[in-house]
């Protein structure tokens, strides 16, 4: 897996990197096939509109628990829109309208009885551009547990901050400077801080929208390693424009094109033996 990281660099893969990818997949497949994973998030016939413009057309996708599911596709195809349907972040865009069903643990998240704020605590999100609060590193992580009443006293919060930072692989770098502003960290550290902030509220699902697109290859490698560790405890959905990354980190891949979900399945299948010609064209770099 680690060798493949250094192949990364081009958005549109050439033949070489595709072969590099299939190597990476082989190391992963053994695990994926042995354990059956129950469905965590289930989307059924989801349409999304921005005002009159339809951005998603009848998307149905099952996201298995404790797996990394990658959403790939050319830019503007609706990957982010679909991701933002899962924690109802699209509700914050006034012109955006979503129809269809999305369930998490068989509970309809668009049910009027569902509280959006609680839903977003269960479904964490990491954004494309690292966006720590302009507060201290400690406050960044402590904020979520505080507003959700997850801790009784300062000691509880301290524990939560430490364990979250540790799980995000940032503890050793920041343990002596927790009082410094989160924005003073490097880009990759900021992104891991955002991951720590998301896992501090102990979500079931973590959504990541191109989390490495603003990072250098080494910071990217750290985040990818982290994702592999995090999936033991969380269900991860990641949008990525890098197919090498999808191949390296995900067990499941869904290919979007012009608002349609073209094909989804085990990552290995999508990359080695896609059913749809559009998928094939995309992963071999014929369009992008």
């Amino acid at each position: 897996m680690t060798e493949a990281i250094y192949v990364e660099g081009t958005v549109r893969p050439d033949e070489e990197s595709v072969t590099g990818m299939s190597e990476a997949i082989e190391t992963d497949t053994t695990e994926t096939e042995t354990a059956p994973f129950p469905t965590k998030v289930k989307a059924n016939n989801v349409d999304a509109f921005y005002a009159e413009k339809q951005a998603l057309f009848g998307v149905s996708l099952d996201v298995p628990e404790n797996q990394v599911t990658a959403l790939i596709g050319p830019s503007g195809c609706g990957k982010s829109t679909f991701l933002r349907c899962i924690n109802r972040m699209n509700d914050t865009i006034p012109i955006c309208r979503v129809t269809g069903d999305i369930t998490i643990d068989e509970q309809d998240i668009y049910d009027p009885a569902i509280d959006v704020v609680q839903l977003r605590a269960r479904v964490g999100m990491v954004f494309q551009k690292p966006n720590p609060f302009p507060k201290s590193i400690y406050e960044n992580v402590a904020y979520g547990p505080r507003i959700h009443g997850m801790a009784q006293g300062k000691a509880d919060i301290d524990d939560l901050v430490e364990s979250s930072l540790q799980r995000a692989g940032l503890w050793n770098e920041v343990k002596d400077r927790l009082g410094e502003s989160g924005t003073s960290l490097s880009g990759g550290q900021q992104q891991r801080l955002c991951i720590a902030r998301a896992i501090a509220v102990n979500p079931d699902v973590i959504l990541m929208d191109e989390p490495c697109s603003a990072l250098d290859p080494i910071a990217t490698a750290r985040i990818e390693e982290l994702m592999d560790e995090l999936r033991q405890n969380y269900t991860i959905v990641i949008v990525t424009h890098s197919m090498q990354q999808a191949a390296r980190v995900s067990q499941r891949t869904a290919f979007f094109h012009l608002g349609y979900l073209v094909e989804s399945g085990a990552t290995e299948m999508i990359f080695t033996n896609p059913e749809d010609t559009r998928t094939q064209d995309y992963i071999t770099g014929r369009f992008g």
Partner: protein
Amino acid sequence: MTDPTIDQPITRKPDFSATHLRKRYRAEARFKFYGVAAIFAALAMLAILLGSIISTGSSAFTQTEIALDIKLDAAKIDPDGTRDPESLARANYRTIVRDAMRAQFPEVSGRRDLRKLYKLVSTGSDFTLRQIVEADPALIGTTQTIWFKSSADLDQLNKGAIPRDVPEGDRRVNDAQITWFDALSDDGRTRRSFNTTFFTSGDSREPEQAGVWGAVVGTMLTLFVTLVLSFPIGVMSAVYLEEFAPKNRWTDLIEVNINNLAAVPSIVFGLLGLAVFLNFFGLPRSAPLVGGLVLALMTLPTVIIAGRAALQSVPPSIREAALGVGASPLQTVSHHVLPLAMPGILTGTIIGMARALGETAPLLMIGMVAFIVDIPRGFTDAATVLPVQVFLWADAPERAFVERTSAAIMVLLAFLILMNLAAVLLRRKFERRW
């Protein structure tokens, strides 16, 4: 000029020549010069303005005083010998002061000359004496040397504002008064001391008894009402419109109206205040409460517009981050967006308050442009404000009010500087980088 041939593609190279470079450097130097020149021009005008205000106004901070030997005759002040405050208050101090002046210049006689003599000291002298006696009744029966304010005209003469070398009919002090004053000076009986009255009294018809304190208190009361109303209402409106209100035709309409209100001439708000607060609600005239209400109406659009601009400048990624960890919209705004927008909101509020501080036109309509002697003690007492005081004094005929006008402007500017300082400190407290 050579024609490029078709089969030979033209290659154009960037001009790296020295002349090109020199031209660019010269343009840059020219631009820099214009900028510096503009700043100097602005500074020069500011210096002229401040210089003229300070040079005319600073003399108002001192006051000429005259020492008189006052015989505090028990028979005249307290004939019953009871030291009863009421009878002390009733005594005729004016004649005591006049007697002392006659004793100082025994050669003066005749009603006309005596009246000129009495005019050397301020008409408020009897009140000054009464206060001294009331403060210490033990003085009764003794003779004391007491410093009295000179009349404003003599004060101006002493400060050189009234020239001595013009014909007697062309100046406000006559030759006899000048002679007496010089005699007093030679005797060491005149001095210039700090003019506390200017900072502790209300307005007066007599320049030497007039002060800005009444206007300062009126300004503080009025601006307090303005701030307490316009800041919270303005910030709440801005937050609601920017963060919560649906974007539809109604909010567009409200936005357009708020923008228009910010440009409405201030006198219109005065008329509104007259019609609504005085005539409809029956609130008292000339009151800081009403003045504050009117100025709050005027300031609100400024605060709302500045607040919305400040909220808009908070990056959306902060909102997404907060919503993403499950903060409610209210928590998102109050924990993250509002604190980040606070410096901008404060700047806008201070700009609005500074404008309110300098406003006279809307106050005209609600009776705050008035001659008010008493220092206001509450929000419903009759009061005036600093710019109105400046306006009233600028209009007064006495020479002594000229320097007081400039001095009042200095007080107004000091007020403004204090407000800006507070804003800077508050802003620094809230400022965060992202």
